[in-house]
């Protein structure tokens, strides 16, 4: 199978293509925010043009302080994506390590880690994040920490379940019979074979983290004003919802599109990473 066929096969996955393109657009938007945004999101405030309707110059209108909403939405992507990325790196690292240990060693290790995971799952994530934020104080760095420490239980459980089935696989038995050590088997044989579902849950988790960041910023615990963050913008726009709806519609739309795109992307990834689909697509015929 050559590169060309491979790309064609990927393009046939609609979820992946649509979700992926939107994610790519949002990522590019975040990276090139200074080039895209016509105004500075923070310092270009002008009370004379406060709460103007969307028009040719201010395509998303202006907010209470006269700042361009479009520019703020564009810059807001930086906060949201960094939250999604950084918290998921922390979550996945914790979740996969604990899940590997629990699934591979079983017994008491498994009981302890699963106990911890169940405790984490029993506490609503928002409440737990709120508790951490309350003790650390509001701010972006603390938000990363709070969300990074609260949401690993899903990837932990998925990893553990995958390891449990993978460690009974014949190739793992064969690896034991070849004298491979535990570390070599865990990281060389088992880990690559379980990464698919973990990747999917990570992508979906990123969408969830972005929503949570919006929620925490809405509650005033996330990025502090005047930093442009979608949740924070929604929070400050709630009083003007009927007088200046564009203040809440556009950041809300941005959250909606980003979360939807990440979910579609995650679904698409799951479809191509599912081994049953792989066999169907590749046609696994020996040449």
């Amino acid at each position, binding site marked *: 199978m050559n590169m060309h066929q491979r790309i064609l096969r990927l393009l046939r996955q609609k979820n992946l293509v649509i979700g992926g393109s939107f994610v790519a657009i949002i990522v590019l938007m975040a990276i090139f925010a200074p080039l895209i945004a016509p105004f500075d999101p923070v310092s270009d405030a002008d009370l004379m043009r406060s709460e103007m309707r969307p028009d040719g110059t201010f395509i998303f209108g202006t907010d209470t302080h006269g700042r361009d909403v479009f520019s703020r939405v564009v810059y807001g992507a930086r906060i949201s994506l960094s939250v999604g990325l950084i918290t998921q790196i922390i979550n996945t690292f914790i979740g996969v390590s604990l899940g590997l240990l629990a699934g591979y060693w079983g017994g008491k290790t498994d009981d302890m880690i699963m106990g911890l995971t169940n405790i984490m799952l029993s506490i609503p994530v928002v409440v737990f994040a709120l508790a951490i934020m309350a003790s650390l104080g509001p701010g972006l760095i603390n938000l990363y920490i709070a969300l990074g420490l609260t949401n690993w239980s899903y990837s932990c459980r998925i990893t553990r379940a995958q390891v449990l089935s993978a460690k009974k696989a014949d190739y793992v*038995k*064969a690896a034991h019979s*070849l*004298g491979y050590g535990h570390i070599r088997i865990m990281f060389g044989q088992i880990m690559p*074979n379980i990464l698919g579902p973990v990747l999917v849950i990570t992508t979906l988790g990123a969408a969830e983290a972005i929503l949570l960041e919006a929620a925490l910023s809405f509650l005033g615990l996330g990025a502090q004003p005047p930093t442009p963050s979608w949740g924070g913008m929604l929070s400050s726009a709630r009083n003007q919802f009927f007088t200046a709806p564009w203040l809440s519609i556009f950041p809300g739309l941005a959250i909606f599109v980003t979360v939807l795109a990440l979910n579609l992307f995650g679904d698409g990834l799951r479809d191509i990473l599912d081994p049953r689909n792989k*066999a169907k697509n590749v046609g*696994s015929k020996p040449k």
Partner: protein
Amino acid sequence: MNEIKENILGDIEKVEPLLKVDGLCVSFDSPNGPVPVVRDVGFYINPGEIVGLVGESGSGKSVTALSLLSLIPSPPGHITAGRSIFEGNDLLKMPNKRLRKIRGNRISMIFQEPMTSLNPLMSVGDQIAEVFRLHVGSSKVEAKELALKMLKKVQIPAPEKRMKEFPFQMSGGMRQRIMIAMALCCNPTLLIADEPTTALDVTIQSEIMDLIIEMRQEFGSAVLMITHDLGVIAETAERIIVMYAGQIVETGSVNEIFDAPAHPYTNALLQSLPVLGRRARFGRQRLQEITGTVPDPADLPAGCAFSNRCPNVQDICKDTSPLLNETNIQRSVRCHFPLTLNSDGEA
């Protein structure tokens, strides 16, 4: 019993076997307590020899092989007794670290399912190379070269191209060749082949058997061939061990076993083999089957384990377990009324 054992011990030490298993017992935990799956199994393998281990499914042959390298899943499996002396050391008492240096290096294993025994996400070249990197300590480049050599040895066509391919791009026979290549990387003195051909087509089966025999000649490894197919080992093995319900019921050379089976179970197994030309010799006959099924290891008959299916069963069989009687170093049978043994105990 002990006397007999010491007798064999004395005999065996003279030939210096490569592997000597003695009194191996394995049980598996179940909700109703431990179930003995392998009971007092003892045998030996001489250097360079092919030994066939035959038995029905569930007779404990795979568990026996796996426990030689302490590979049975534990829990639920436990090796409860026995010794397995390999090159002067007891494998069963060896710490895991030392055992890992033997696995894949001095003793290798091939499994039944070539379709699933290879890591689906690693190219076969890398998989073979990893064995060299682990046991020989080769560099990446060296390991690749050695892996390519192994692919050539197991007669994979276009080995350079195949190196980069993944298991799903290969047929079952091809994958079994890769498994054999991986097993033989470190020139093992003992190769344990656990039903290596069961999952393959008949034509591929004979190719793989030929390859194993060829490889044995090249590498000088002894082979423990586990199978339920007597036909597979008739032409390859030198000695045969027959297992039934976790016990060895008969051992002997291929000729002895095939020409003059002493245990009714071995005899019944041979009778149930379709033989070409049987009709010409004996006229039209129905192929014999063994009535009944293998007893549940949790609920074995009080006497001989085969007593509930044996055509020659007597009263003593139902309440007294027969011992494994050695007539000589090669030949032994566990039966109160062995079929072909003469009055002087010779086969």
